[in-house]
C-alpha cells in the first residue's frame, strides 16, 4: 500500500527515466539474489507488456529496488529531483 502511494507521486513526465534507472539498478545489483521470485515474475509480466514505465510497473520496480538496495534506490530518486519520494522511501525504510 505504501509503495503504491509512493509510485503515484512520481510525475508522469519522469516515468520513463525512473523506470530505466530502477531497472538498471535491479539488474546490476550485487544483491539480485534477494529478489523474491513472485515479485520477479510480476516485473517480467509488466516488462513483457511494456508496462514498467507505468504507475503499477514503477510500484513493483520500487518495491524490488528497495529490497535489493534501499540506499541506491533513495539516491536514484534524489538524482531524479524527487524529494517527496525520497522522504517517503526513508520513512518506510525505518
Amino acid at each position, binding site marked *: 500500500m505504501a509503495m503504491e502511494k509512493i509510485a503515484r507521486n512520481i510525475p508522469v513526465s519522469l516515468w520513463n527515466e525512473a523506470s530505466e534507472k530502477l*531497472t*538498471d539498478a535491479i*539488474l*546490476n545489483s550485487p544483491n*539480485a*539474489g534477494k*529478489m523474491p*521470485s513472485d515479485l*520477479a*515474475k510480476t*516485473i*517480467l*509480466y509488466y*516488462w*513483457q507488456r511494456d508496462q514498467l514505465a507505468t504507475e503499477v510497473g514503477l510500484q513493483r520496480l520500487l518495491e524490488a529496488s528497495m529490497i535489493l538496495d534501499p540506499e541506491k534506490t533513495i539516491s536514484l530518486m534524489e538524482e531524479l529531483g524527487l524529494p517527496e519520494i525520497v522522504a517517503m522511501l526513508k520513512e518506510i525504510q525505518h
Partner: protein
Amino acid sequence: MVEFGIEFVPRDLYWKTTFYAVQAEKMGFDYLWITDHFNNRNVYISLAIVSAYTERIKFGPGVTNPYLAHPVVTAQAVVTLNEIAPSRVVCGLGVGDKTTLQMVNIEQSKPLATIRESVRVIREIASGGTLEMQGEIYKVSGAKLNFKVNSSIPIFIGAQGPKMLALAAEIGDGVLINASHPKDIENAMKFIREGADKAGKKLEDLSVSAYTSFSVASNYEKAFKAVVPVAAYIVAGSPEMILEQHRISVEVASKIREAIVHAQWKEAFSLVDNNMVEAFSICGTPEICIEKINKLLTAGVSQIVAGSPIGPNMRKSINIIAAEVFPHFKK
C-alpha cells in the same frame, strides 16, 4: 536475409535471463540459444520460463550434448517445449564442453557416430515414431513417447573440426560454427559444402551460423575488457593448429591454461592480447562489430549468434546491437 541469434548462459538468476530474453525478442533477434552445462541452471527449465514470457523468438538449447543427456531425453524435452511454444523450438546439439564433462568423468568418445546417431534418435522420437535401432552407440528397442506428438524440430549441430562440420551439414538442419574470425568461417565453409553435397542439399537450404563470442560497447576499451575472460578460456582450450593459424604463441596459450587451472584469473587475463581477441571474438564499438559481421557474412554464414559476454552491460549492449548494428543488416 541475415538472421541474428543471441546466447545466454544460465549462470545468471532465472529472472535476469528471462528479462534479457524478452528484451532480445523486443529488439528483433530471431533466435535465442541457452547454453547447457550441468553446473549452471538447467537449460530446459530456463527455456520453459523464457517461452512463457515471449511470443515470437525461436529458441533452444545451444548446445546440449548426448554424453550427459541421452537423446531420447533431449527429444522428450524439446517436444515438450514445442507444445508450450509451437514452431518456435530448435535443438542445438554438439559434443559438449570437454572441461565440464571431465568433471563427471565422461569422455567424448566417438563424437561423429554419437552425433549422427543422436540426430536420428531425436528426429524419430520427436516425430512420434517408434524407434528400433541397433547403432554403434545407441541400442533402442521400441522407444516411443506416451503422448501424441508430431513435431519437426530443426536440429542445429555445433561444430568446429572438419569432419564434424561436414557431418553437421550432411545431417543437420543448421550448422553452428564455433568461430568468430572470417578466416575460420571460410575454412569451415569448405567442409560444410562437402557435407551438403554428400546429402544432395543446397547450401541455401541450410542455416549456417557463426556462433561468436561477442562484446559491443560505445567505448572499445570497455568492450575489450568484457571479452577478455571469454577469450582467455577460448585460447586455453584451442588446439595448437588453431592457435598457429592465428599466430598466437602456443607458449603463452599454455601459460593462460595453467593460470586458469590454478584460478589465477588476474595472471590469465593479463596475458590476453588484441590478436587473441581479434581471432576469437567480435569485439568493439558498433562500427567495428558491423565491419566484422560483414566479413563473416561474405565468408558464407546466414546467422550471426552473439554469444557471451554480449558486452560489459548486457541490457545496454542488447540495445546497442538493436539500435546501431541491426539497421545495417535488417529492414
